[in-house]
């Protein structure tokens, strides 16, 4: 049921289907995945203590999603509005029954379409923070949390546990307040405490920061990051805010039209996206098209032809010579050549172009450089842009650093 009221609309200024990408400078760390990481993540799918989700149906909401989340791990499901993020979360919670697939948690099957198995939400032990928090309006703060604690416990114990949980989310002294007398940030904390009271198997967060103002959001994010260090259950966060996902998550699950396109660590999703679609979804602008050439005699570098330039590549992946490929140039791997002085990496893939626009964003400026029929987007310090006389119509030369260039299959046409 994606048509819930209160669902956050995409931010103004977003391109169609684009994610927000502010504060998204993770720095050059391509190929950050070590062999250990690979093993750890391979084990995620086999671990009996985590969460294993595979959901598949043709309609009414098309879904074909598969991911796992280990104990103590935070997985962020990111994707544009209407991509099925909330539906996936509701399927895990037991509030939406998909037509096909299976969901397992801690080795127990919650849903198995083939076996006709479906556990109701009451039997799952899932903590869920709703987008609108969904606090019980007629109960005070303590009672809201107590309602999610096992009814078998004596009331005294439940009250003590509720107070402890409220202290964990930095909300003490408001136990007797009714939800209508709480601010947005306070309501979110109560919702989080109530979810934690119930999160034996996993914790689910549905756009938990979308209903609060910017300052509160930053504080709540920091608190969640702190809270995570004390948590042992798998946590799944649904968000359309990519910077939020990048800062909080151990791994991202990129979702578009119900399909999981890539599940990987944030740095790898950003710098080694599996497809041009993923690259666009995580906010990249420099997605170019070129043709891979036969390797040179020394075979150290792959070579690519793009807009009449020949670029050398550090890694060609599984692509073969003659392939038409998509090329990602992350903006931090575009280096401007200084006037009159040689720069670092100057001989590496030099490209000449014409400046089309310089937009001052504060201490950084966004530059659009036209190269042939393509345009490169990158940011640089404002003072450097001014010192180098970057202005619309001026010629400029940049280097595209080979280590950052990443090849992807072209979009199917």
């Amino acid at each position: 049921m994606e048509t819930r009221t209160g669902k956050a609309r995409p931010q103004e200024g977003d391109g169609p289907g684009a994610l927000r990408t502010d504060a998204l400078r993770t720095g050059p760390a391509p190929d950050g995945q070590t062999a250990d990481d690979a093993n750890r993540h391979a084990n995620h799918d086999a671990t009996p203590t985590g969460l294993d989700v595979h959901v598949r149906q043709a309609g009414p909401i098309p879904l074909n999603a598969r991911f796992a989340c280990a104990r103590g791990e935070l997985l962020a499901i990111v994707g544009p509005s209407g991509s099925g993020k909330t539906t996936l979360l509701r399927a895990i919670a037991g509030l939406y029954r998909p037509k096909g697939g299976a969901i397992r948690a801690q080795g127990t099957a919650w849903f198995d379409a083939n076996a006709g198995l479906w556990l109701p939400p009451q039997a799952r032990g899932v903590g869920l923070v709703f987008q609108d928090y969904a606090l019980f309006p007629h109960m005070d703060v303590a009672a809201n949390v107590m309602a999610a604690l096992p009814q078998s416990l004596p009331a005294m114990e439940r009250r003590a546990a509720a107070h402890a949980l409220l202290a964990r989310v930095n909300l003490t002294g408001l136990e007797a307040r009714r939800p209508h007398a709480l601010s947005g940030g306070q309501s979110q904390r109560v919702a989080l405490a109530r979810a934690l009271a119930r999160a034996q198997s996993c914790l689910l967060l549905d756009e938990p920061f979308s209903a609060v103002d910017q300052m509160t959001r930053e504080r709540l994010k920091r608190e969640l990051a702190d809270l995570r260090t004390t948590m042992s259950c798998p946590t799944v966060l649904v968000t359309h805010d990519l910077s939020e996902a990048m800062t909080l998550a151990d791994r991202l699950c990129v979702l578009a039209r119900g399909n999981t396109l890539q599940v990987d660590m944030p740095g790898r999703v950003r710098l080694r996206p599996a497809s041009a679609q993923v690259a666009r979804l995580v906010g990249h602008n420099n997605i170019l098209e070129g043709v891979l050439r036969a390797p040179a005699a020394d075979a150290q570098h792959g070579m690519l032809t793009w807009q009449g330039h020949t670029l050398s590549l550090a890694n060609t992946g599984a692509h073969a010579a003659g392939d038409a490929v998509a090329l990602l140039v992350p903006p931090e791997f575009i280096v401007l050549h200084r006037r009159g002085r040689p720069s670092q990496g100057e001989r590496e893939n030099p490209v000449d172009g014409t400046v089309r626009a310089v937009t001052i964003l504060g201490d950084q400026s966004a530059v659009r450089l036209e190269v042939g029929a393509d345009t490169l987007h990158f940011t640089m310090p404002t003072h450097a842009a001014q010192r180098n006389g970057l202005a619309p119509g001026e010629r400029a030369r940049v280097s595209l650093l080979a280590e950052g260039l990443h090849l992807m299959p072209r979009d199917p046409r």
Partner: protein
Amino acid sequence: MDWTALTLSLQLAGLTVLILLPLSVMLARWIAWSGGRAVAAIEALVMLPLVLPPTVLGYYLLVGLSPGNAIGAFFATLAGGPLVFSFAGLVLASLIVNLPFAVQPMARAFEAIPQSVREAAWVSGLSRWQTFWRIEAPLAWPGVLSAAALVFAHTLGEFGVILMVGGSIPGETRTLAISIYDKVQAFQNEAAGLMAGVLLAVSFAAIAVMHVAGRQRRQRMAPVAEF
């Protein structure tokens, strides 16, 4: 003052509230939380007694409940006697007439409970039954109270349908409203005036209860800003 008629009216109103309320809660929840054409059709059917002239409704009930046809015969065996011109028949008629007054306020009250609040209760481990008693009922309570007051007052004042189905048998079907009519017919204006006063007071009290309940509801649900 016709004390028998007053007692009969109070019995009829009380029984109607007692029987109609649980049924209407179920119906109102279904109307509030299910979509589709069936809901719209049923809701229209429930509203029908509101716009139908009482004599028309009374006529159909009289014909339908008479032991001469299948439905009437079925109810007659169920109630142990013919339903027309009997107290049991009045109760049945009263239930049908009051359906919109019971269902409408409750459906609005249940509709006002966000779906996510009920889902939060399920996820928190509350069974459907616990969710009803601990979450839905307290939140919809003002609406249920309004419905009860409305049904009670409306049953006391119902005239047309009761006259058609029950006639005016003292101690069996002569309610207060019928008795007022009979007294006026017999030029006993003082007695009629006294009984009219009683009905006025009860109706006013019922409306007052509804308003208090409405205010209570606004206080419970209102998103008041932080002070």
